[in-house]
Each structure stands twice: as C-alpha cells, then as structure tokens.
C-alpha cells in the first residue's frame, strides 16, 4: 500500500557565488494512486530526478510537502526502494550480501536473509551468481541485483531514476520486461524517471511530461495498453499513436531547452 501525494513541491538551488538562485522544480501537485505505475518523462535537466529524490527523501523541497500514505516524508526510508542510474552496488559485498543489505539493517537473521535473497535472485534471473562480487558482473546484471536489493525490503513503492540509462539497447529491453513482470506480480507503486519515450509508454500506466527549467508538469498521457505487456506491443498502432503524441510534446520542450542553452 502506497499512495503518494505531492503537494506544492518545489525546489530552488542557491545561487553560486552570490548569483541568482536556480529553480529546478516549479511548485507542483501530483497524486499517484496505490499500485499505479507512473513515468516522469522529460529532457535532461528538467528536474525530474530532483522531484524523484525529494520523494525518496534524499533531497529537501524548498516548499510544499510529500505524503506517502498520509505520512509526510522527512527523510529516506526502507518503505521507498530506489534504483539509481549509476551502479551503486556495494563493491565489497557479494550479490547475495548486497541483496541482504536492507534486511540486515532491519536486524533480519542471516538464514532468513538468505531465503529472501534466494527468492529474489530467482525472480531477477541471478541464480548461480550469489557469491559473485559486483565487479565480476555486467551492467545489466548489476542493475538486476540493484533491483533485487531494493525489493528485498518489500517496500511499498519503487523509485527508479533512469535505472537502465547506462545499459545497451538490447539489455535495456530485457530489463524493461523484467521490471514489468515484477510489477505485474507484486503491484508495487512505481515512480519511474526516464528520458526515453518508448520506455515510458511501454512501462507506465500514466506518463507525465515535464518541461525544462523550471520543471513543471506539462501534460499527462494515459497508456491504456493491457497487462501483461509483451515486447511486441511496441509495434502496435495504439503504441505508435501514444509515442507520437509524446514525441511531439517532448520535442517542443527539447527545442525550448536547446534555445535556452544557446
């Protein structure tokens, strides 16, 4: 159970050397229903990651507040699992120990941690890699471990910050299907940040387009494609129509952002 309500949340970064402050996120409202899969889509630098980090409790909003199940977010916590774009596995722990990190912090005994890790390794296809260190793994396997590690706490929601951004195209497609399977099985509330339009449409039930500097939510597009979703859905006319609509919307923002940088 996790319904999120973002109430007038904005973020301003103080100016560098007495310069004017930079506004990353304009105060905005957003509600995410329990078990929903929402994608935040926008060009780089639009504040989508900042917004996600505020929900995670890793960054503080300048104004407004975030409620998860009616309780105000004051800091990071095990109820909101997160997967980062960068590889953040602990290099000194094996795959199994990385997955068991969260339960360990909660005081779960070793045998039980092992059971949790075994189940998750099977779910994300890492059986047989329990004793591997992260440096022995490919990028895709590292992110699968990171996903399993986030799931090990059985969080009410998942926050994903371009988790497949550093992966090659083929690996990324497989990871998308894997994450969809996880969502279809567990129905956790998901907030997924990406700049990849196709990825957003394929994964999410709602796609929110964010504008660049200051970050605002420009439009919302619902994705009425049924679950379970198969990769072949990416070739259906319905998929193409939604993708086109979003492309048009994003293009305007990218052009505006490019003009601002010129």
């Amino acid at each position, binding site marked *: 159970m996790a319904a999120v309500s973002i109430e007038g949340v904005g973020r301003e970064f103080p100016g560098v050397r007495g310069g004017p402050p930079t506004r990353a996120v304009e105060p905005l409202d957003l509600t995410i229903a329990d078990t929903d899969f929402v994608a935040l889509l926008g060009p780089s630098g639009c504040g989508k990651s900042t917004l996600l980090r505020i929900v995670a409790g890793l960054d503080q909003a300048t104004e407004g507040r975030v409620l998860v199940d009616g309780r105000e977010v004051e800091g990071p916590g095990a109820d909101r699992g997160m997967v980062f774009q960068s590889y953040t596995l602990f290099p000194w722990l094996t795959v199994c120990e990385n997955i068991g990190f969260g339960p360990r*912090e909660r005081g779960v005994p070793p045998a039980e941690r092992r059971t949790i890790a075994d189940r998750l390794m099977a779910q994300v296809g890492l059986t047989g890699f329990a004793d591997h260190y992260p440096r022995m793994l490919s990028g895709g396997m590292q992110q699968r471990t990171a996903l399993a590690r986030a799931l090990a706490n059985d969080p009410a929601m998942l926050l994903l910050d371009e988790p497949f951004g550093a992966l090659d195209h083929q690996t990324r497609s497989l990871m998308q299907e894997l994450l969809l399977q996880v969502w279809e099985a567990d129905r956790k509330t998901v907030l997924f940040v990406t700049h990849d339009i196709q990825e957003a449409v394929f994964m999410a039930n709602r796609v929110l387009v964010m504008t660049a500097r200051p970050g605002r939510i420009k439009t919302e597009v619902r994705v009425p494609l049924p679950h379970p979703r198969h990769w072949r859905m990416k070739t259906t006319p319905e998929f193409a129509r939604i993708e086109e609509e979003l492309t048009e919307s994003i293009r305007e923002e990218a052009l505006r952002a490019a003009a601002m940088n010129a």
Partner: protein
Amino acid sequence: MTGTVGRRRRPSTFAPLTPISPRARVTFGIAFFVLFFAAWSVATWGGFVKPLFLADPLKTFAAGWRLFVEFGFAGDVAVTISRVVGGFVIAALLAVPLGIAMGAFKPIEAFFEPFVSFARYLPASAFIPLLILWLGVDEAQKLAVIFIGAFFQIVLMIAVLIGETRRDLVEAAYTLGAGSRGIVLRVMLPYAAPQIAETLRLVLGWAWTYVIVAELIGADSGIGHMIMDSQRFLDTGQMIFGIFLIGAIGLVTDLGFRAVNRLLFPWQLGR
C-alpha cells in the same frame, strides 16, 4: 597508394601501462639488487672508496654474522621491532577511530582538524630531547616518539579517506533503511578499508625512522643503539649491516601487509 594510418601498435614492453608478466616483474626486481651489489663491490674492492668509509659487502655481512653470534644482536633487533610495533599499534588504535569519526561527522572534523593539521607538522624527532626530560630513556620515551610521529598523520589521512566515500553508495544505503551507525560501520568503513590498510602500511615505514632516531640519541639497546656504538669503533661494516637489516625487515613487512590485504579485501582483486 599504400601506407598505414596512425602509428602501428606494436606490442611493446615500453608502451605506457602495458602489463608485465609476474615472472618478468620478479626478475626485474631482483636484477636491481644484483646491480646494487655489483656497484657496491666495484666501489669497495676496486679501491675507489676507502674501507674506513665504506666496508665491502663481504666484510659487512661478516660483521653482521659476528653481531648475531658474539654480541647478541638478535635481542637488539627484537627490542627495536617491539618498539616500532608497540608505538605504531597504540597510535593506530587511537588514530583510526578518531579519523573515522572526523571523516564521517563534520562537526567533529571542524573541532579537531585545525589542531591535527598543526600537530602533523611538529617533527617527532624534535620532541626527543623534551621526551627524555619527561619520560627518561626508557621504553615509554621510544613509544612516545613513534606515537607523535604516527598518530596525527594517520588521523588526517583516514579522515580524508572516509570523507571520500562515494555519495551514491551512502544514498543507496539510506534508501535501504540504514541509519547513521549503519552508514559509518557498514558503508564508509568497508569502502575505505583497503586504503586505510595502505595508509597504515605507509605510516609503519615512517615509524621505523622515528625509532632509529630515538635510539641514536638515547638508548642502551636496539638497532639504532648498535649503529651509534659501531661509530665509536669506526666499524662501517656493522653500521651498514644495521641499516641494511632495517631495509630488509621493511621489505618483508611490506610483503606481509600485501598478502594480508589480498586476503582481507578479495572483492578488489585485479585492481
């Protein structure tokens, strides 16, 4: 038209960062020692240096043999090693926790850092006369010299290492439910552990310098004391042997440290 574009990439031993086989590494390492002894032999037996100033290799090792067999030098070596290890362990036991606390918690760092930075520059050897006055010429004085020389250096270097923990790993741990204690003990400490071991290895080397200086100035035992005694008899063979032995002990300690690091930190093999 024929020709090549760019420079041909020949597998050359001297291209930057080209790896070298373990066997070649050992051979090269030994080769330098051979050259060193050759140069020493030529300088002494060739008559380029007076025997009074530099004993030849054979005399040096014969002097070393006599030291051990006739003068009970093994006891001196043991005394010096125990001083180095004792002073170093006391310094490390106190410095490592303080360094970790400073690296992790910024108010603690703000409190100690300026003084430690100042104290780090105080030369340990300059304290020796003062320490003799305070503590006499007993073991406590030797340990204190090493402590002053090692403690502040270890504190500062460890504070920096801990403070350099990757932010994204700390953030990941927070989202997994870790608190301050978990972050320090189970993220920052293991992250910095290999470099902490490396720092300790480095400082242990400096501790050897401090102990010998302390023994040269005021001691009735130890390798430094032996070197000072030998000077009175102009026995360059013994003096050189003493210096040489310290180098050999250092080399062995280094190899030991490396082997232990490989055992303790298997996750970073191949780096």
